[in-house]
């Protein structure tokens, strides 16, 4: 038989997929890897760009004020973790293991800090316990400006993050373990210590690390309420913005990276084991009614929820007050931002613009990137590399990434320097900052879709991009909007990453808050924070409504 070679089919689909993957890899290298590399290299250079080894680090250790900040950061972050995690655990316990009324409402209340810039609670604290605060006497002469204020404000800011982790951990309980314990006549307290606590221990470890990292890398709260109390994050700001000492800023950035990387590593380990904990045949735990327990937990949740709502409400209320504390009549004067900041409402509009661009470009990049990683076949090594880059920002605090961007964009060799201070850099940085969670959401969604769709398409000679447009994207619409809303809300509230990157015409609302607070216009700062909170919440509510009403019509095929 004569063997005739088939006409050499150029595998057009593989070529397109490879080209797209290369493009994506290039974008992610620019967005994530190069800025981090800039930070690393800057920390071992002198101001002339010459390699000086660890000289900057030894100078850091030799400077007592800087080392003091390191110590301050460590003990404050540890203290916040020690306070928040037990409280969040009890709150999560009430939400998952009791039949306390209003569990959904309490969950929603606990999430409110996520919709505000971290420094909102610091502003509220100033109103309550500050020099003019109505509860100042409660501090027995201590000042809220310093560690006390930082710890309380950070506790509020971190609470929802810890709660989300612990609720997830406690939900993963095997009901049969409790039935067995009860059948064996085990005392309730012993059940708690032998079943409940061990089941959630990985979540607890994870929550401690996450809270520690959030606090040590947060910039807004210590800036607003820290007073003379220095921490690493404010040091980095002073070194870069105040003294233009980029090398020392890079060293501080690297130090901030350590706990985050540790937390990331611990979290990865913990997640692996958490999954193994629950077998496929486990039965979900159904709490039984217990009036005494439920009442006690309700009281606890009312207190915590009250504090969280109070923190939010205080700033909102204060933003409408004419002259605290002497004239408590209501006014809209504080919203006339032009009186406090040259940008006026411009900062708010810039924020909206930045958040919208981040949501649009970020969602497109993340979802198409996740699709290429998850659903195409060629170039397994390249796909692995892209996935690694996508997971990297999880281990990088916003402040550190922001520093990396400063060094990268300002590097003399970099032609992209023309974008410094423009929305382009702000959007790029924000997309990179929040890339990982969005990527995980997209990958999780794509994994739920039958992996044979692409095989079927290939057999029907339909290229994968047609299937992406006609099938994968429409099916994934809810996840896509989840990602867009997540990016929008976070772009709106972020402070730490963008504080180094804004330019004269691109000052964001969250930065305007910092500036107005610096100038003593705390009421205007509260007003701007209120605008952000209301916008973020409105977007979230719009999302929920859209999900219910509009998508339901496009998704008729989900009904049986």
């Amino acid at each position, binding site marked *: 038989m004569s063997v005739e070679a088939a006409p050499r089919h150029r595998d057009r689909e593989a070529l397109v997929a490879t080209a797209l993957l290369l493009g994506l890899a290039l974008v992610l290298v620019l967005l994530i890897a190069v800025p981090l590399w800039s930070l690393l290299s800057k920390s071992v250079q002198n101001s002339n760009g010459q390699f000086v080894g660890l000289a900057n680090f030894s100078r850091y250790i030799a400077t007592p004020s800087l080392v003091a900040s390191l110590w301050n950061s460590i003990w404050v972050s540890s203290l916040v973790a020690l306070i928040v995690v037990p409280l969040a655990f009890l709150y999560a316990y009430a939400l998952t293991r009791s039949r306390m009324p209003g569990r959904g409402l309490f969950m929603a209340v606990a999430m409110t800090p996520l919709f505000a810039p971290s420094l909102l609670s610091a502003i509220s604290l100033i109103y309550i316990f500050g020099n003019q605060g109505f509860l100042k006497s409660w501090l027995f002469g201590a000042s809220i400006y310093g560690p006390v204020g930082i710890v309380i404000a950070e506790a509020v800011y971190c609470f929802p993050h810890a709660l989300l982790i612990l609720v997830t951990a406690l939900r993963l309980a095997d009901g049969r373990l409790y039935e067995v314990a009860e059948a064996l006549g085990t005392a309730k307290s012993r059940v708690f210590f032998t079943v409940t606590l061990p089941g959630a221990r990985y979540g607890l470890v994870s929550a401690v690390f996450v809270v520690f990292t959030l606090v040590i890398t947060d910039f807004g709260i210590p800036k607003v309420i820290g007073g003379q109390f220095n921490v690493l994050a404010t040091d980095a700001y002073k070194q870069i913005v105040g003294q233009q000492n980029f090398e020392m800023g890079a060293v501080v950035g690297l130090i901030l990276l350590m706990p985050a990387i540790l937390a990331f590593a611990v979290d990865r380990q913990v997640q692996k084991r958490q999954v193994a904990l629950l077998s496929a045949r486990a039965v979900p735990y159904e709490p039984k009614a217990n009036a005494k327990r439920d009442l006690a937990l309700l009281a606890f949740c009312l207190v915590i929820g009250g504090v969280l709502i109070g923190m939010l409400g205080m700033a909102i209320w204060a933003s409408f007050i004419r002259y605290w504390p002497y004239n408590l009549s209501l006014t809209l004067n504080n919203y006339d931002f032009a009186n406090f900041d040259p940008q006026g409402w411009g900062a708010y509009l810039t924020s909206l613009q930045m958040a919208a661009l981040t949501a649009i470009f970020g969602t497109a990049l993340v979802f198409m990137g996740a699709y290429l990683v998850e659903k195409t076949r060629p170039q397994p090594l390249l796909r692995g590399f892209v996935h690694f880059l996508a997971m990297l920002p999880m281990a990088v605090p916003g402040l550190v990434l922001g520093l990396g961007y400063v060094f990268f964009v300002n590097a003399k060799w970099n032609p992209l320097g023309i974008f410094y201070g423009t929305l382009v850099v702000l959007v790029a940085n924000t997309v990179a900052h929040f890339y990982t969670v969005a990527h995980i959401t997209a990958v999780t969604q794509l994994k739920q879709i039958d992996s044979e769709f692409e095989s079927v398409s*290939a*057999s029907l000679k339909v290229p994968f991009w047609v299937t992406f447009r*006609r099938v994968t994207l429409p099916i994934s619409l809810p996840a896509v909007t989840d990602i867009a809303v997540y990016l929008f809300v976070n772009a709106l509230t972020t402070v730490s990453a963008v504080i180094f990157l804004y330019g004269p015409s691109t000052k964001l609302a969250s930065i305007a808050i910092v500036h107005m607070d610096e100038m003593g216009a705390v009421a205007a700062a509260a007003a701007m924070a209120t605008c952000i909170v209301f916008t973020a919440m409105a977007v979230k509510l719009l999302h929920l409504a859209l999900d219910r009403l509009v998508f339901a019509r496009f998704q008729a095929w989900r009904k049986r």
Partner: protein
Amino acid sequence: MPNHAVMPSAAPRAPAGSFLSIRGLSKSFGPFQALKSIDLEIGEGEFVCFLGSSGCGKTTLLRAIAGLDRQTSGTIMLRGLDVSNAPPSARDFGIVFQSYALFPNLTVAANVGYGLVNQRKPRVAIDARVKELLALVGLPDQAMKYPAQLSGGQQQRVALARALATSPGLLLLDEPLSALDARVRLRLREEIRALQRRLGVTTIMVTHDQEEALSMAERIVVMNHGVIEQVGTPEEVYARPKTAFVADFVGRMTFLPGVIESETLVRLGDQRLRVAETPGFATGELVALGLRPEAVRLVDGAGENRLAMRITALEYLGSFVRATLSSDGAAPLTLLADLPFNVMQDRAYIPGQAVMAELPAGALRVFPSRTGA
């Protein structure tokens, strides 16, 4: 292009010329060899089943033929053309998966027409073709429904129609019936077979269900650990299994250890059994004698190829009863015997009863000893 795939094939099917030819095909996943130098010829219009347990390489082979997972080495020729390195879209096949893989957001009609839209055919032609295909698979009035509104069996029919829509030369079925319940599975078996006969499309089906393979295939390819154990018609594979693995995988077989005495005689302990043939075995060689449970007969009185045994267990299996028989003595032999329902009714066997089992010489097959000693 004429819709030749839907027209009943009037001409007699082409003899098994080489439609698909596989030479030395291997596939490794790291150190694990999923396929070890597979050679296989499939003729035009044939219905072939790849049969084996999970992990035997049957799905890997199917995906290599489709081009979905590229082989490590070896060649695949389709109609005399070397397609070894061609992408799936350049090969001429339709595929149906166990999961159906129907696009949930598209209607049944849009699913079936999915590959046609891309061929830039006029709307009217596509609609007509979709209608024709839905009628073919017996779902003429479900065009506007979404997959989630159909039963599993209906969904699999839609998947079949979609795979046939572009009139492929080769139809690949990857465990298409495994996700269905037993009754639907039986009906679809017949339907797929009838459809394939009508269209004359060369078809390869992967299955782990030997009954499915026996009832549907013209030829069965039995696979184990990445190699082909036997290729043959269902009758050949069942009645003349080449290896002990095939014998035990396709149907049940019990094995008794023995020693070759002559060309037609095998010794089991102190008994001698006559066999039809001992191909390629030397006198004195240790062998395993294989026997299907349904070939064993319980008789009265001693004689050639008869063993005195005792019933140790009876398992009720509906239309027949499977008896476990053991011989007495130091090295007891154990074998299974299927007793038809009417025999059980006549004789009313009970556990512990002594019986005489006849092992017909024609049903005894000689395999290399499993212990290898």
